[in-house]
């Protein structure tokens, strides 16, 4: 008997008497002393009186659904670590449980070591959560929360999913367009998990140099001496955040799969102990597309894509934009030493009318440009390098405004190349509401090119 383990309570909920007896025996031999329930009602009663920090729960019970019971327990005591037990063939249900906040799942027949390991991990995690109280983590978490403004329904749902998956140890796969906050989301999951005191290591698998990537990720290969300890080793006990895992070469995908299957990092100087890491992956596209394109090994997909989380683009949540913009403005103003205090309502309208194809990154860049070039304290529409939204036309106006198709060759005949170029650029500037950066974007040239050419035209006309 190991009294240290027995101090923390453990409840075993299993309705088959022989299996309950077997699991109890295994747990007792490992030093745990579980209280046992054979029905959902009995489990509810014991949970209310004993409040065990860790629960081993069979998902199929005679009088209630195990998932419902788990949800009730987590609502009452969110810090509880629930390990669900399921029969082989019902793994989909176990995955569903994990998505709803289960810490881990075990598939019958239960291996002794696997069961004991899961319980021990759950106990350790419970202790870490209830004892850490780290102010640094709280501050970091608050900062991330602020960056993850969720007034819109869609983002509130995302936050609910984040809270649920943070309790689990299972791999998370974040899908979202560029700039939608995938890294911030990964950081929030990490900070809200019991691994928050351990490292969060990020690796961009899209690095073009496969040798460098091998050295960074696995600590092996020709460049391993340069990079030092592998990301996998550095993430021990914490979280490994993999961006674009489908961009790994087939060989490196195989090695990653091997690490996930065996728990061995494969690094020459690594400890023999299994690597305890939680994997969070992120990509712009659904990884199924990468499988179809032959970029991602199916076996690796199933190891990484357990808990999916989809982030919406910024234009899909306009309600969140004012708060996000205010927050970005405050941060940027502080960094740049400018006294910006607020965004005027007119500027907010302009901001909300934009498509924001670059999402949060683009919004931040636009605000930074405004702050750097102006003094504040108010951020007005004129400071924003954005085009006003085109007014909605009536059907008649739309017909009248429809472009008249001309023979381009005829229209341009007699003009010099400089005149054609000037005309094209001026038209692009007009189409973009006077915004040179946007006109440059449309024409796929640098804004400085337009500024230079504009100076040249002015010199010519004077």
């Amino acid at each position, binding site marked *: 008997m190991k009294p240290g383990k027995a101090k923390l309570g453990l409840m075993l909920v299993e309705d088959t008497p*022989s299996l309950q*007896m077997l699991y109890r*025996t295994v747990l007792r031999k490992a030093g745990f002393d579980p209280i046992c329930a054979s029905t959902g009602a009995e489990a509810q009663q014991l949970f209310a009186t004993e409040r065990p920090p860790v629960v081993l729960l069979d998902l*199929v019970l*005679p009088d209630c659904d195990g998932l419902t019971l788990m949800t009730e327990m987590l609502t009452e005591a969110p810090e509880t670590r629930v390990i669900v037990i399921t*029969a082989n063939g019902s793994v989909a249900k176990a995955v569903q449980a994990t998505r709803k906040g289960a810490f881990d799942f075990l598939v019958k*027949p239960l291996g002794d070591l696997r069961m004991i390991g899961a319980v021990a991990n759950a106990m350790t995690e419970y202790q870490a959560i209830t004892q850490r109280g780290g102010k640094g983590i709280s501050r970091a978490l608050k900062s991330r929360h602020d960056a993850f403004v969720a007034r819109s329904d869609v983002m509130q749902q995302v936050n609910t999913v984040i809270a649920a998956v943070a309790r689990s140890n299972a791999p998370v796969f974040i899908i979202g367009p560029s700039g939608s906050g995938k890294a911030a989301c990964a950081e929030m999951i990490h900070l809200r998990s019991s691994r928050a005191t351990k490292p969060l290591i990020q690796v961009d698998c899209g690095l073009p140099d496969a040798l460098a990537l091998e050295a960074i990720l696995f600590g092996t290969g020709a460049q391993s001496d340069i990079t030092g300890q592998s990301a996998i080793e550095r993430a021990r006990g914490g979280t490994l955040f993999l961006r674009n895992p489908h961009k790994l070469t087939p060989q490196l995908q195989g090695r990653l799969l091997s690490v996930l299957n065996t728990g061995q990092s494969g690094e020459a100087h690594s400890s023999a102990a299994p690597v305890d890491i939680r994997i969070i992956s992120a990509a712009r596209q659904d990884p199924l597309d990468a499988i179809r394109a032959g970029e991602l090994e199916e076996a690796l997909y199933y190891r990484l894509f357990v808990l999916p989380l989809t982030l919406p683009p910024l234009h899909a949540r306009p309600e969140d934009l004012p708060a996000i913009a205010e927050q970005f403005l405050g941060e940027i103003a502080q960094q740049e030493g400018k006294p910006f205090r607020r965004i005027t309502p007119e500027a907010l309208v302009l901001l909300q009318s934009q498509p924001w194809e670059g999402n949060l990154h683009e919004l931040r860049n636009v605000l930074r440009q405004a702050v750097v070039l102006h003094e504040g304290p108010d951020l007005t529409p004129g400071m924003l390098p954005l085009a006003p939204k085109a007014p909605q036309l009536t059907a008649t106006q739309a017909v009248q405004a429809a472009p008249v198709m001309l023979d381009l060759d005829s229209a341009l005949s007699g003009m010099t190349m400089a005149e054609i170029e000037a005309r094209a650029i001026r038209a692009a500037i007009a189409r973009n509401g006077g915004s040179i950066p946007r006109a440059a974007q449309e024409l796929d040239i640098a804004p400085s090119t337009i500024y230079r050419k504009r100076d040249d035209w002015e010199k010519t006309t004077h």
Partner: protein
Amino acid sequence: MFPSRLDTAVLASLVEMGGEELRLQLLADLRACEDGLKTLCCLSPETATGTTPQTAHLLHTLRGIAMTIGAATLVQSCIEAENLGHAVGRAALVQSLVAVLQECALVRAQIEQCPDVNA
């Protein structure tokens, strides 16, 4: 010599760990499942078409025990019966449950023959 209906090494290790008490409980649980399924087979056709929640629960319990003792054929029989679903006719259901009961009886007989570790 009949082929083994379960993984004897697994059963031996379970009995070594849980003792005679566990062996007897395994037998009691298997018998309880058998009795429950027999009762369902004998119900009138009007009250027992398709896999009812009670049938499903008994099959699930039996499958969990079978997996634990390495009774692969019994696991398979249970899965086949579980997969019949709600819309299946009574004849097909009973036929499937009978197959489960036959295999369960064989497994139970083998556990009964397992030597008593306390003896």
